[in-house]
């Protein structure tokens, strides 16, 4: 539930209370519809699979999904695959953050460098990264490094470009202010450029976490013996549709949870910016 910000104005009048109540009722209703929709979807899926309206060998069914889930939890394989995928995603994501911050800072510091690199960055960013993955496997081998590099490659170029754009668009007069106070370039960076870009950086990160997950799954499709991407590709080749759909479902959850974590951070920070 959303916290209501304290204000100096009174929050106790009946009209105000009624208003808050009506808002709360509305949001509860929306939640109810959301759950209802899910239930309707799952039951109709289950019923049509049982009555042969859809082929449950291809389309699976909620009950099969559940039993796959339970067996995979019991033999520990599910946790293992999740761990692998999550680990690769988070390492990739961390590398993207650190790498793009460093490169964007270098570009900001040295305009010539950024001008020289600009067309290459734009090109690399536009490149469909899934085309890169097979090349990476040849170069780096079928291992975790490849998958992490693959995850980074999906996110990093766009991330650098966006952070750099944020850096150069800092209000010129704010930089002038630091200079009038006799600050040097490093102080401009530390006192104005980076802090004023924190919200921007967080929203870029929100996009990046999803992109890293995409990169990891692409990598696992091609170069892995473990991880959810591997389960999907292996499952689809051996017609274990339960495994495939379950992995996709879990990827959804992972993406959502990682996104929510960043959004929470953003909300916390927005009080200061």
């Amino acid at each position, binding site marked *: 539930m959303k916290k209501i910000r304290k204000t100096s104005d009174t929050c106790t009048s009946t009209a105000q209370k009624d208003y808050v109540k009506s808002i709360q009722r509305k949001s509860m209703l929306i939640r109810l519809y959301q759950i209802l929709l899910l239930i309707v979807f799952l039951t109709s899926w289950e019923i049509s699979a049982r009555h042969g309206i859809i082929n449950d060998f291809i389309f699976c069914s909620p009950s099969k999904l559940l039993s796959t889930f339970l067996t995979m939890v019991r033999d520990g394989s599910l946790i293992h695959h999740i761990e692998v995928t999550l680990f690769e995603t988070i390492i990739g994501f961390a590398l993207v953050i650190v790498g793009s911050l460093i490169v964007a800072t270098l570009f900001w510091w040295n305009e010539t460098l950024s001008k020289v690199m600009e067309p290459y960055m734009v090109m690399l960013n536009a490149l469909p990264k899934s085309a890169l993955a097979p090349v990476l496997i040849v170069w780096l081998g079928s291992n975790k490094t490849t998958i992490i590099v693959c995850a980074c490659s999906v996110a990093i170029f766009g991330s650098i470009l966006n952070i750099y754009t944020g850096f150069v668009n800092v209000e010129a007069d704010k930089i002038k202010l630091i200079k009038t106070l*006799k600050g040097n370039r490093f102080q401009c960076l530390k*006192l104005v450029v980076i802090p004023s870009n924190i919200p921007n950086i967080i929203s870029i990160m929100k996009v990046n976490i999803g992109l890293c997950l995409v990169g990891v799954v692409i990598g696992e499709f091609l170069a892995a013996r473990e991880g959810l991407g591997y389960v999907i590709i292996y499952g689809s080749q051996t017609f274990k549709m339960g495994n495939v759909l379950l992995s996709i479902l879990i990827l959804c959850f992972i993406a959502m949870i990682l996104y929510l974590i960043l959004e929470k951070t953003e909300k916390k920070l927005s009080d200061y910016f």
Partner: protein
Amino acid sequence: MQTPILDFLDVNYNYHTISCETVTLKDISFNLYKNEFISFVGPSGCGKTTLLNLIAGLIEASSGEIKIGGKPVRESTLNIGYMLQKDHLLEWRSIYKNLTLGLEIRKQMDESHLKTVDTLLKTYGLWDFRNVPPRQLSGGMRQRAALIRTLVLSPDILLLDEPFSALDYQTRLNVSDDIGSIIKERKISTILVTHDLSEAISMSDRVIVLSKRPGTIKATIPIKLSIENRTPKTSKNAPEFGMYYNKIWGAVHEKDSENE
């Protein structure tokens, strides 16, 4: 006669771009004396901000000489305070941390300097707001905070670049009065740039009129008002006010035919 704290001698400044060279300031010569308050008025784009940037050492004159306290700008040890058009308080810092920004940059966060900050906060009514973010302050208070941010460094010369132009008319009158009094009280030599003629007259000892670009000095008009303890607000009631207004208005709008 006193020695001036700031000397301009035949200063020229040109901006360079690929397409052309813009002559922005031409043959500017004037002095600023200690404790004096000068205003520059002139049309938009005539080089007023450029002039202040020169004094602050942000840019270097194309030719001519600028001396601060008798020394070239680069070698001068005097402190220059510069207040920009907007307050540019940093939203992610509390008021207190905004005011200590200059000290932090100069690595002077010692006890005596911080004591000065506290005194200024108390004197100018921002003590209770020291821990809040800038967005909780009114426009006038923000401007005052921006002034204190420069006062903390005890400037010998204060540069004000249309510091009130972002405020609405009523607030503007009060804030200019407020800030004018603070400056008078602390006896800081000041250069104000403004579009507003009555603001210029009411605050200054001298008004210098610039022509349109390339900015040259068209007229220098000393302001002598026959009232005791003048403040920006009371100055407006001086009997000579109207006369000065017309005189400066005339100078601003005079055709600069001799330039062509």
